[in-house]
């Protein structure tokens, strides 16, 4: 307890030195690209920027899957020459149900449906129900898999879209099962980004059912979709997707040579080009609809087969909306609609104000504690102050090492850590004072002080740690950052008080062998 080996001394000093080194990148410029250079990131509240919390619409993932499953069911039955009626989907149960044309066809129906291709093993089950109808049921595992895929895919698409806007250092992370956090430093007006992310940009090509034109109930497999420019007008469009907009290789905004209006030119990849050629060839004279997010952009008549794999969409675009749509088509469609459910934006001037406020508070708080310790605890107080400085350095070092983010609450966490850190020194000093008052020798008093205080120090830090673990677990953003800095601070406090300041005291004692302690 009262002896520290050279090795221990050297290693404690080495840690402190390493701490100083790790802090340097925050103050200096990186000398060469090969030098590892890790520094603290400033949080959005200090740097200015936008935070968007987005919700992936999981219901639409299910609904989408069921629609394609229903479509696949129809195609499979028609392909096998079988009839059906009353096709219905139940999103809650994840089923597509229909009634066979006649009970005698049930076996053939089951056989045809079980032969449908599956994306994953046991994706769905086909069974006859007591009332004679047949149900195709998606397995919960397959749905869960699809949902996770949808979020992963969404993150990828969101990343592509944001990269295309030229944002610097965007952070895109998953939160929970169905949420995405987008952090955009430096962007203080996220309106355009919100618009870009809020658009699904799912483009598909369908045939228009001209036979159902004007009827209110267009019949099975056909939906009434509004026109993009005139939401009151509705067009009956087949549910079946002839060509998918995801089979695009390029899209760009351009001016239509004939009309002089803004339009979006696109190029299909080989799969898309082949499907587009086949569809247009088979349907010359009919109308096809270009559908974007369930709205008909345009429904031109097919004059001849289009085999080049190129196309153009026009429909009252402005320069901005054509550019944005081209960007969205290039980045790909979101697998499900995204909606913003929380946004926080900090302007650059407020961020600068907060940094200043945080630094002043940190500086003044640190100075006050140092003066207090010097006045009330003398020499041992100064040792505590040395430990306090080391504590600050080590906290910054650890945050830099992990390239952690520092927010204003994080700075408050540092400050409170500094206030609490000297508690250990105070405990030790008060104990030594008591032991001296009981008539112990300086050596015995210091020994007793260290010994008795250690368990108290551990106990008190453990309870503080518990509270902040909870805060970290349940908090979000800035509050988590506060809890994180305090948790790091508790670790550095234990190191600097139990090792560093104690060592300084012991070495001073060993050097001078005082008869009276400065307490």
């Amino acid at each position, binding site marked *: 307890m009262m002896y520290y080996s050279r090795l221990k001394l050297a290693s404690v000093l080495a840690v402190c030195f390493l701490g100083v080194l790790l802090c340097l990148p925050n103050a200096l410029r990186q000398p060469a690209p090969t030098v590892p250079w890790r520094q603290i990131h400033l949080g959005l509240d200090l740097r200015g920027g936008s935070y968007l919390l987005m919700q992936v619409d999981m219901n639409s993932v299910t609904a989408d899957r069921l629609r394609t499953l229903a479509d696949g069911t129809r195609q499979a039955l028609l392909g096998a020459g079988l009839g059906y009626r009353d096709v219905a989907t139940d999103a809650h149960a994840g089923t597509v149900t229909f009634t066979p044309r006649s009970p005698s066809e049930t076996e053939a129906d089951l056989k045809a449906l079980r032969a449908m291709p599956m994306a994953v093993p046991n994706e769905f089950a086909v069974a006859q129900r007591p009332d004679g109808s047949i149900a195709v049921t998606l397995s919960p595992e397959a749905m869960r898999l699809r949902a996770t895929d949808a979020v992963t895919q969404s993150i990828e698409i969101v990343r592509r879209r944001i990269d295309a806007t030229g944002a610097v250092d965007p952070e895109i992370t998953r939160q929970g099962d169905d949420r995405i956090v987008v952090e955009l430093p430096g962007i*203080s*007006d996220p309106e355009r980004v*919100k618009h870009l992310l809020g658009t699904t940009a799912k483009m598909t090509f369908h045939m228009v059912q001209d036979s159902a034109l004007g009827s209110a109930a267009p019949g099975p497999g056909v939906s009434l979709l509004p026109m993009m420019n005139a939401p009151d007008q509705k067009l009956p469009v087949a549910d079946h997707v002839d060509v998918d907009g995801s089979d695009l290789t390029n899209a760009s905004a351009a001016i239509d040579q004939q009309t002089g209006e803004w339009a979006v030119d696109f190029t299909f990849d080989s799969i898309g080009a082949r499907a587009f050629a086949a569809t247009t060839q088979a349907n010359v004279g009919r109308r096809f609809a270009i559908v974007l997010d369930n709205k008909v952009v345009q429904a031109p008549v097919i004059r001849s087969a289009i085999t080049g794999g190129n196309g153009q969409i026009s429909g009252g675009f402005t320069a901005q909306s054509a550019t944005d749509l081209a960007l969205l088509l290039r980045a790909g469609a979101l697998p499900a609609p995204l*909606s*913003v*459910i*929380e*946004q926080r934006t*900090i*302007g650059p*001037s*407020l961020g600068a*104000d907060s940094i200043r*406020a*945080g630094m002043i*508070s*940190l500086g*003044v*708080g640190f100075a*006050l504690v140092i003066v*207090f*310790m010097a006045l*009330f605890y*003398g*020499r041992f107080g*100064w040792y505590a102050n040395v430990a306090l400085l080391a504590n600050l350095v080590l906290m910054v070092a650890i945050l830099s090492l992990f390239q952690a983010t520092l927010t*204003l*609450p994080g700075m*408050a966490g540092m*400050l*409170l850590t*500094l*206030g*609490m850190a*000297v508690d250990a020194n105070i*405990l030790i000093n*008060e104990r030594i*004072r*008591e032991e001296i*008052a009981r008539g112990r020798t300086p050596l015995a008093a210091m020994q007793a002080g260290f010994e*008795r205080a250690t*368990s*108290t120090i551990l*106990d*008190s830090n453990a*309870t*503080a740690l*518990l*509270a*902040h673990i*909870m*805060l970290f677990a*349940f*908090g*979000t953003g*800035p*509050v988590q950052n*506060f*809890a994180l800095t*305090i948790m790091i601070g508790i670790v550095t406090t234990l190191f600097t008080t139990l090792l560093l300041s104690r060592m300084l005291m012991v070495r001073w004692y060993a050097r001078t062998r005082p008869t009276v302690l400065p307490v």
Partner: protein
Amino acid sequence: MFSRPLLRFVPNGTKINFMRGRFMGLATSAVLSIASVILFLHPGLTLGLDFRGGIVVEVRTQGPADFGQVRAALATQHVEAAGVQSFGAPDDVLIRLDAPPASSADHEARTQALVDSVRHAVATLPGAQVLRADAVGASVSAELFRDGMLALGISLLMILGYIWFRFEWEFAVSAVITLILDLTKTVGFLVITHFEFDLVMVAAILTILGYSTNDKVVVYDRVRENLRKYRTMPLAELIDLSINETLSRTLGTSTTVFLAALPLALFGASLSSFAWVMLFGIVVGTSSSIFIAAPILLLLGEKRLRRDSRPPR
């Protein structure tokens, strides 16, 4: 200053009879806590954006803010503000909007779209800039509130468990009762000051709880030590002795934490209300260690703790 300390809080060997005033202390605490609970019920806490949901936009205008002009600009965008008020500097305006009722189908989308309307309105004011614009949807605010309360509740349970594990149940129970009393007073303080109750305030309260527990642990630690040392001393006297012995430390640590939080309250910008609550909590937590936690321990442990310092478990 560089060798011997210049100042002392309390002289060595104080013998203040804290336990004689225990009923006084408990009664004062009870009155304050009951008053706080009444304040909590009416008028109640001012919920912050995190928990209430809605929109807050902070704007810095050119020259002193003209609220009429701000309201007029909002009106052109068909935005009805729940509040347009000043905060901090005279050229700073805070615009507060309530979230659309959660019963409407597209309330989340409308909440988020409102921010853009406010921005458009601000853009029409010459020289005005948006300092901060936050919008929290109803589902998020409900979740944040639930998580905040869970963090508080579980922390209390964990502190109870920890002290129970390290000490005896009397210590744990009196600590948690005291913490709950501290908590109610902090809530009362929030109601009186109109500080907004949000996640940052939950962080402040949890920090106070952690700090206050720490303070109690130190006193309890000494009580436990003295229980072993003085096997025949009456509990009241023993607790008094323990408090006196640790008094200098209690005051010392409270002062350093207080000093650390003080500049944050004075200069801490958006964290200043957080820091004021911390300062309040430090004072309450320190005094409750002496005047509340110790008397409750005395009431709970008068028979049990004294009969045998290490009862079989």
